[in-house]
């Protein structure tokens, strides 16, 4: 049969979905790591009647609309033409002042010249990769790592090496071994990516001792550390620890954001880096977007001028702490004994691990039938691990939904644990007793297991 009817006229009219016509033009790096089945599954988590514990959203509904309106009015009255104009690539001095305030609150003094204002914290990861990575260069990060960093690493064709974590964060002994191994193999890591506070997705915090060791190793090996600290201000208990940047200014690139303390919608983050690195990142940013939104920068600056910004952060801390507690209590009430989870002192996420025989990607398919969702652990690994873990978010949903969502997930987990017991002839599984300790991960001897990682998926020989 001929294809003559596929006339030029027809083609001109409608070709918007004909991907294959462009496929041969796509770069190798556009091949993403996640399987399309997983992507399709994740897309279903966004349906309106699904209780999604899969998101990572701060709750912006608590920001008063009146304040928003009056701040915008201030911007209009005082800086209209400048807000509508391009700004300097490095960011407006006014915003750098706000950034200094936030960093001071976190125990750091910063010279505004060392700050680059970015379009969200995500752009820092992108710019660091753009500045430091040639294809095949090694990036060392935690296992699990921030799922949103994985596509960025992949886009720059990085060789991602993951180092396991326990309750104190990245295991430095394993990091040392890994770095030595890489050296022997002639593979040069360019930087170590870490989220030291209230890790996404693991929920754990890097201990002081390990912070000191990490910066020592980085300094000895002259390796950069990308310290991603979006959640540092959201601490619900315990004492703040010094940032890596405050322990070492030579080899730490610091990244943070207004997303979690004010709004992700303003798309403003920042980085503080050693001046030569910052200069290269600045050039990279010029190429990406010239500058971050001036309107957003004036908005943030007006917000910081309008009163103590810490007040809103404190209100968020109160809300999120309650939601975290509801999630921890719900997990204790509804998850089987075989499950373990972290007890985050802050941030937005809990990492729960189920018995090895449960695959959380498959579990998600079952959970979606009950209209509830989470992020399967595999999304946070580049090598197929994490198959029996899940990330649960507690900041973006109401207390009632958290409880109901965890209850529904607990039901399907129970169902699978019980089925496995039936299949293997194991003892029938009992539900947890109400008086069960609500913080199972607080038992230190058990904590190392919480982040334990299932073996890599078997491959055919």
């Amino acid at each position, binding site marked *: *049969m*001929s*294809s003559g*009817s*596929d006339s030029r006229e*027809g*083609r001109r*009219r*409608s*070709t*918007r*979905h*004909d*991907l*294959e016509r462009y*496929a041969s033009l796509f770069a190798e790096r556009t*091949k993403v790591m996640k*399987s*399309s*089945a*997983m*992507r*399709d*599954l994740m*897309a*279903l988590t966004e*349906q309106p009647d699904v209780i999604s514990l899969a998101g990572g959203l701060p709750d912006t509904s608590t920001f008063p609309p009146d304040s928003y309106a009056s701040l915008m009015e201030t911007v209009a009255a005082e800086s209209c033409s400048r807000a509508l104009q391009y700004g300097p690539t490095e960011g407006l001095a006014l915003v750098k002042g706000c950034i200094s305030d936030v960093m001071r609150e976190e125990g750091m003094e910063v010279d505004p010249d060392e700050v680059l204002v970015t379009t969200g914290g995500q752009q820092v990861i992108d710019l660091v990769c753009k500045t430091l990575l040639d294809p095949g260069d090694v990036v060392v990060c935690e296992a699990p790592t921030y799922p949103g960093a994985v596509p960025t690493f992949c886009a720059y064709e990085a060789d991602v090496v993951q180092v396991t974590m326990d309750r104190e964060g990245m295991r430095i002994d394993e990091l040392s071994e890994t770095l030595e191994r890489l050296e022997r193999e002639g593979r040069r890591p360019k930087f170590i990516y870490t989220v030291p506070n209230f890790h996404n997705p693991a929920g754990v915090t890097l201990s002081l001792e390990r912070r000191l060791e990490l910066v020592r190793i980085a300094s000895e090996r002259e390796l950069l550390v990308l310290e991603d600290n979006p959640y540092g201000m959201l601490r619900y208990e315990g004492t703040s620890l010094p940032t890596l940047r405050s322990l070492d200014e030579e080899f730490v690139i610091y990244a943070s954001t207004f997303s979690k303390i004010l709004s992700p919608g303003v798309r403003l983050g920042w980085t503080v880096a050693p001046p030569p690195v910052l200069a290269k990142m600045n050039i990279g940013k010029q190429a990406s977007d010239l500058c971050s939104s001036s309107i957003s920068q004036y908005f943030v600056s007006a917000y910081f001028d309008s009163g103590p910004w810490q007040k809103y952060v404190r209100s968020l801390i109160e809300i999120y702490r309650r939601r975290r507690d509801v999630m921890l209590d719900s997990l204790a009430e509804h998850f089987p004994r075989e499950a373990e989870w972290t007890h985050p002192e802050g941030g937005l996420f809990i990492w729960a691990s189920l018995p*090895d*025989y*449960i*695959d959380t*990607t*498959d*579990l998600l*398919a*079952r959970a*979606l039938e009950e209209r509830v969702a989470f992020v399967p652990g595999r999304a946070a690994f580049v090598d*197929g691990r994490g198959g029996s873990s899940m990330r649960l978010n507690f900041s973006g949903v109401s207390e009632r939904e958290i409880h109901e969502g965890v209850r529904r997930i607990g039901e399907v987990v129970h169902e*699978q644990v019980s*089925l*496995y017991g*039936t*299949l*293997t*002839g194991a003892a029938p599984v009992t539900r947890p007793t109400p008086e069960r300790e609500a913080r199972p991960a607080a038992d230190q001897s058990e904590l190392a297991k919480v982040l334990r990682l299932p073996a890599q*998926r*078997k*491959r*055919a020989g």
Partner: protein
Amino acid sequence: MTRVAVLKGGRSLERQVSLKSGARVEDALERLGHELFAIDVGGDLVERLQIERPELAFVALHGRDGEDGTVQELLDAMGIPYTGSGVSACIRAADKVLAKHAMRDGGIPTPDFFAFNETAFKELGAARALPAIEQRLRFPIVVKPAGQGSALGIKFARTAADVPSALVAAFSYDRKVLLERHIPGRDLAVSIVEQARLPMALPIVEAVPNEEDFYDFESRYEIGRTTFVCPAQLPEGVAERASALALEVFALLGCSGFARVDLMLDSEKGELFVLEADTIPGLTETSLLPQAADAAGISFDELVGLMLHAAAAQG
């Protein structure tokens, strides 16, 4: 010009693929000069069809509701002709267990299998029969949900220790699962399209995995991990046998319009085994049916035209 409703999306796990298939079909229908409107299938499906009164429905749904006869039953009830197979063929093909029984009864080679409902394990102690099953099927064994169309939930058990977790995974998608003997060999797909009421087998597509992770079913059909060869380079006579088998399955299950039949070519003995039939295979840029049509010189628009024509002829 026909007024066509494109049914796509829905709530199945294959929603995204369906949206892509649907969007592509819409473009083609537009190019072919038909009047069309798209329905993302949900609670208002019947109401929308009653209001819009299409002359014909193009079912671009995959998985539950779309491929299992549910939507077809509704369209029958409303008297709206539709593309693809009718209710009974959909029911038989969507349930891999029913399809395999039909094939076995009909003398069509399909890998040995055993299938169970969850209740068999929960209430009848079927777990105790697993060693006997494992002995009969021999490892490695493929464990699949009966009704899931995509690669989700398909696990590969290499030893007895892998079987319980593979079953738990498969039961995440369906109340019925099957354990199937693995046929090591080449992975072939025969697409069938009716032309002038005659089913015609298109050139065969072979999926050749690029890496060693052959048993990672989820990544098996990813771009870059698998190379699709069409027409497949096969030993003499194999393509003819595969096509003939596929056409037999098409007729046996009562399919109409179009379908895709998946087979394995045993690497040792050169025997062919039919795995399953898909009554609404993907129509995306990377899907196998459009690739096969392309190899036969049938453009996507012509393919959609044929599907529409077959539907109108049935209706």
